[in-house]
Structure formats: structure tokens, C-alpha cells
């Protein structure tokens, strides 16, 4: 470890410790009478106002992984990586109205998870189970990615040991995280998110003003980027990318942005962030203000080209022995900033990993508790039982995420995240469309979900990645020529690429429509709808309704 790395480590540790103390203290913040209730532990008492919600959702959606992986994607493949910007531009306007409906109906009926809503809407614990399991499965690799971001920082600081124990610093950070999440629930990440955002804003603003000045302006940076991306890759003989989109990846760019935007609020952790807010007005204000982060994200993405211009090289991961492209931004900071400021930047990324990891594990724990434990294992669970069960589940989920990091190469974990996105998108008909219409039959939704998942997996399995020699799960861009529906190839030979999630969702919807028509013709039972149309616009809980319709069944 060099002298500069010692300074970085000391600054990092100081900020990290300060945040950990905040995490433990958070349980006293706006203290509830009884933290042993799932509404309190898992939704912070459902009373976060506009500011807290803004920081919470921002911490939730703009994660360490975003800060590390998006620039890394521009660094390695060019313009395609910028998809994150249109994705976050369109997401909030698109989801604002559905989220208001979800908030209202959840407030009236006491729903804690998206699966709770599906349970109430379709009177089907099985469909709710499918939604809950999908949410948990899609969330795990997402948490793992946060850890990948945190570990990229730790390895840049010089904590780059080899083998299993090379992950030890990560384990320590995670035990701390697990302890304060267990203790304080959603209040901990909500409070820490404020610190994280302040740090990130400072770092990005400095980086985006100071670095281009140092490197000759954006004109020179883009020239360097275009020149490097145009060089043929040694493994494929093709250029690695371009600073503009090509004829083949424009559709991929648009569908990936749209698919990611639609998936964003299907993830259980973003629903948790929304349901914890105190009013519809809070959500409206947040959907208006959250795109402010997109501006930050755009600047951040450009750091990928800045890294090219600065000649940054990814650090070789001590555990896998291969260069880890996730370390591009940390390595850029380490090379260009004074060491104390690099330490601040690393702390910002590291804390940026802990906030979403905490929220995600809480959301997954809520799903487990409400839709699996209480539904199938212990129907008479008291609110205190639920809270205890959720706390334990949050620990299990985190251990699972750590295992991901230890077992799979971090490069591969990025692909897991893409798979997670394709998976969660398949819950769109049952969760988002259901907010507007109950036209689909519940078993048709289940059939569409299954087809979307299986088909999505088959397509992902078939995508190779020539750049690293992998045969399967090499990314989420499907060449239309490779689209094969039982031997029928409608776009034979085409090299135009599209996002797998979008294709699978179309299949999902088609199946859901057809099966609905069949089931309706055969008069299959539809189940009762526990929600009423007025519930979707409710601004408060009507007194005549049972606040917890799900648990009172």
C-alpha cells in the first residue's frame, strides 16, 4: 500500500464510521411507539415527507453500481452506455400516475409489498407468491452489484488481497451494514442517504469541472475516446465501440432505456421507497424533482471518456486475476485527485453502495414476510412476529448477496443484473397494468409471467459475448436475426439488436391476452377483487375500511 493509499483509506474509514454511527442512531429518529411492527421497521412508519423521500429514492435508484458501471460501460463500449440517461429521463414521468394509484390503494388496504397488492386485486396467493419470488430473485443480484461497486473501491485503495480472504474487507463492511439495518430498519438508509448525496454531488461537480480542465476540455476528451474506441479489439477484430450509436444498436439503446424505465418501479425496493412516503403530494413532488439526478448521472457517465483521455487502466482484481472494468472510475480518481479527496470520493461511492443495499434487503425481507411466511407458513403471525421475521430475512438476503460476490466473477455479476432486469419486467402486467384494469384473468397473468421468464432466459442463454469469449449469458442485446420462435425466424439474418426484456415482455402480454380470452370463454372463476375503484385515488384511509385487508382474511 502506498502513502497516498493510506491517506485514502483513513479518509474513507472516517466517513464510513461516521455513517455507521448514524445508522445505529437512526432507530431513534422520529421514533415510533413500537419498532416491532413491519410498517415501522420496513416502511419507516409510512411518514417520510418530500425531502426524505427524495433522498431515499435517489439513494435507492442511483446506486454505487450506477456510479461505477455506467462510466465503465462508456469506457469500454461507447455511446450505448449513455442509455442510462434517457432511461432516467423517461422513467419518472412514465411511472408517476401508476405510482399514485399504487400508493393510494396500498394506503387504504395496508399493503406493504407489490405482491400484497396483487394478492388483494386478484384474490390469488399463488399469483402473489410468483410476484414475490420474482422480486426476491431479481433483487439479490442487484444487491450483489452494490457490493461489486464497494469492492471496486476497496481494491483501488489497495485492499486487493487474493483468494477468498481477499473479500474480507467487504465482509467487514457488510456486517456493519447488516447490524444497523437489523437495528433501525428503513430509517437507517433514509438518514444515511442524505450524507451520501451530499458527498456524491461534491465529488461529481469537482470531477466534471476539474478533470476536463486538466485534460484539455471535452473536445479533446471526445477525440481521445473516439480514437481509442475505433481501434479493433484484439479478440474480435471489430472496433470496441463508438462515441455515436451505430445502425445496429439504436433499437437496443431505445428498448433498453424503455425497458429499464418500466422495470425501475417494479423492483420491490423502489416500491418500498414510494410506500414509505407520507402523501400523494410527496410522490408528485418527487417524480418532478428526481430527474435532477439524471443530470448528475449524465455528467458521471462522461467520466468513462475522461478516463480514456487520462489513460486510466482498470485494476487487476486480486481474487480473479483479471482486470476489473468496475475499477475504472475509482482508478481515475486515484490517479487524478489529491489523495485526501480521492478518499472522500471513495467514501461517497462506498456509502452509495450501502444505502441501496440496505433498502433492497429490507424490501426483499418484506416480500418474504408478507407473501411467503405469513401467507403459507404462519397465517396467525402477529405484527411483532412479522417484524422479527423480516429482520432475520434481511440478514439472510445479505448473506446470499455476499455469496454471489465470492462465487462469481464481478464481470459476470453485471450480467446477473441484466438477467434481473429481464426477470422483474415480467411482473409488469400483474402489477402495473393491474393498477388500471382487471381485464386480464389471474391465471392468464401467471401463464404470461411464466412464458416471459422462460423465453427471456432462453434468449439470454443464447447470447454470446465475443469480447470475453463467453458462449452464454453474454449480455442483454439480442440480434433480431437470432429471434427464433419455434423455428420461425421473422427477421432472419438481421444484425439489428434489441433488448431481450422488451421481447420477452411482448411474449408475456400476448400469452396473457390469449389465455384470458380462453379462460373467459370457459368461464373459469376469476376470484374477488378486494379493491374498489375509489381506493386508487384515496388521499387518506377511509375510516370504514379495515386498514389491513390482507392480514384480516
Amino acid at each position: 500500500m502506498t502513502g497516498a493509499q493510506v491517506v485514502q483509506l483513513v479518509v474513507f474509514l472516517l466517513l464510513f464510521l461516521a455513517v455507521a454511527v448514524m445508522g445505529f442512531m437512526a432507530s431513534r429518529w422520529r421514533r415510533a411507539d413500537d419498532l416491532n411492527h413491519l410498517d415501522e421497521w420496513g416502511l419507516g412508519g409510512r411518514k417520510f415527507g418530500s425531502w426524505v423521500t427524495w433522498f431515499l429514492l435517489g439513494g435507492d435508484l442511483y446506486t454505487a453500481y450506477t456510479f461505477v458501471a455506467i462510466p465503465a460501460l462508456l469506457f469500454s463500449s461507447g455511446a450505448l452506455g449513455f442509455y442510462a440517461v434517457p432511461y432516467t429521463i423517461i422513467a419518472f414521468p412514465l411511472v408517476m400516475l401508476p405510482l399514485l394509484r399504487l400508493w393510494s390503494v396500498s394506503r387504504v388496504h395496508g399493503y406493504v409489498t407489490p405482491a400484497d397488492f396483487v394478492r388483494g386485486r386478484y384474490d390469488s396467493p399463488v399469483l402473489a407468491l410468483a410476484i414475490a419470488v420474482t422480486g426476491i430473485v431479481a433483487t439479490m443480484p442487484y444487491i450483489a452489484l452494490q457490493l461489486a461497486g464497494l469492492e471496486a473501491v476497496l481494491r483501488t485503495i489497495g485492499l486487493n488481497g487474493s483468494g477468498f480472504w481477499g473479500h474480507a474487507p467487504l465482509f467487514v463492511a457488510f456486517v456493519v451494514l447488516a447490524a444497523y439495518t437489523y437495528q433501525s430498519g428503513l430509517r437507517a438508509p433514509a438518514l444515511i442517504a442524505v450524507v451520501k448525496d451530499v458527498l456524491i454531488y461534491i465529488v461529481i461537480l469537482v470531477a466534471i469541472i476539474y478533470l476536463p480542465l486538466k485534460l484539455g476540455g471535452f473536445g479533446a476528451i471526445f477525440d481521445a475516446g473516439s480514437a481509442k474506441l475505433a481501434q479493433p479489439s484484439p479478440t474480435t477484430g471489430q472496433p470496441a465501440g463508438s462515441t455515436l450509436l451505430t445502425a445496429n444498436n439504436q433499437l437496443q439503446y431505445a428498448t433498453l432505456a424503455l425497458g429499464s424505465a418500466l422495470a425501475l418501479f417494479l423492483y420491490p425496493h423502489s416500491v418500498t421507497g414510494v410506500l414509505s412516503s407520507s402523501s400523494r403530494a410527496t410522490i408528485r413532488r418527487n417524480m418532478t424533482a428526481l430527474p435532477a439526478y439524471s443530470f448528475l448521472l449524465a455528467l458521471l457517465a462522461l467520466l468513462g471518456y475522461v478516463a480514456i483521455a487520462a489513460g486510466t487502466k482498470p485494476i487487476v482484481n486480486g481474487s480473479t486475476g483479471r482486470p476489473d472494468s468496475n475499477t475504472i472510475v475509482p482508478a481515475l480518481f486515484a490517479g487524478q485527485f489529491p489523495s485526501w479527496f480521492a478518499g472522500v470520493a471513495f467514501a461517497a461511492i462506498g456509502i452509495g453502495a450501502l444505502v441501496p443495499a440496505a433498502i433492497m434487503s429490507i424490501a426483499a425481507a418484506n416480500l418474504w414476510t408478507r407473501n411467503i411466511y405469513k401467507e403459507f407458513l404462519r397465517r396467525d403471525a402477529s405484527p411483532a412476529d412479522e417484524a422479527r421475521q423480516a429482520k432475520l430475512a434481511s440478514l439472510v438476503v445479505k448473506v446470499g448477496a455476499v455469496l454471489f460476490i465470492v462465487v462469481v466473477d464481478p464481470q459476470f455479476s453485471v450480467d446477473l443484473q441484466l438477467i434481473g432486469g429481464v426477470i422483474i419486467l415480467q411482473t409488469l402486467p400483474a402489477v402495473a397494468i393491474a393498477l388500471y384494469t382487471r381485464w386480464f384473468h389471474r391465471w392468464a397473468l401467471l401463464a404470461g409471467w411464466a412464458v416471459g421468464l422462460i423465453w427471456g432466459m432462453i434468449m439470454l442463454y443464447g447470447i454470446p459475448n465475443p469480447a470475453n469469449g463467453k458462449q452464454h449469458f453474454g449480455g442483454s442485446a439480442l440480434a433480431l436475426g437470432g429471434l427464433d420462435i419455434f423455428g420461425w425466424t421473422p427477421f432472419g439474418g438481421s444484425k439489428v439488436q434489441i433488448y431481450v426484456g422488451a421481447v420477452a415482455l411482448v411474449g408475456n402480454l400476448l400469452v396473457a391476452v390469449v389465455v384470458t380470452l380462453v379462460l373467459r370463454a370457459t368461464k373459469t372463476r376469476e376470484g374477488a377483487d378486494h379493491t374498489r375503484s375509489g381506493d386508487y385515488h384515496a388521499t387518506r384511509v377511509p375510516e370504514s375500511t379495515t386498514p389491513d385487508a390482507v392480514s384480516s382474511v
Partner: protein
Amino acid sequence: MSSSTLEPETPDPAPAQPSFRFRAWNLLLLVPLVSLITPLFNVREPTLVGLPFFYWFQILVIPIGIICTLTVHLVTRHDDEEGHR
């Protein structure tokens, strides 16, 4: 809202509203989708402070999107202000 089947306010918690309320203002929320139409902006020139058009155009759509969402929020927020949440 200018629906012809407008119900008078009744303190009844049962559904008095239609389940779907359409407002032309809400269409503004679709404006940011322009950032998905890549052929419109997938060019290098004109550049702005060294940034190719592809990049600064999409950055420009961010404030446009915020203005559209803000407009919808401001013109429809009264719906939520009956009663105190």
C-alpha cells in the same frame, strides 16, 4: 376535471369516482420519450463546449422533462387536496 358524470361531493368513503380519470394535461408526460427516438439526435455536430449533439441533446431533455412533469403536477394537484391526506 370536466367529466360530464361528475358526482357531487358526498362524505361516503365508497367509490364515487370513476377508476380512470383522463386529462389532456397528462399527455405532457410523454414528451420526454423524444429521448428514445435516436435517429433524431445520433449525430456529432453541432457540438456544445466540446460535447457532440448526441450527448448535449439528451442532457437538454432532462430540464424539458422536469418542466413537463412539474406542469402536470401543478395543474392536477388540486385533485389530491380534498381532505387532509
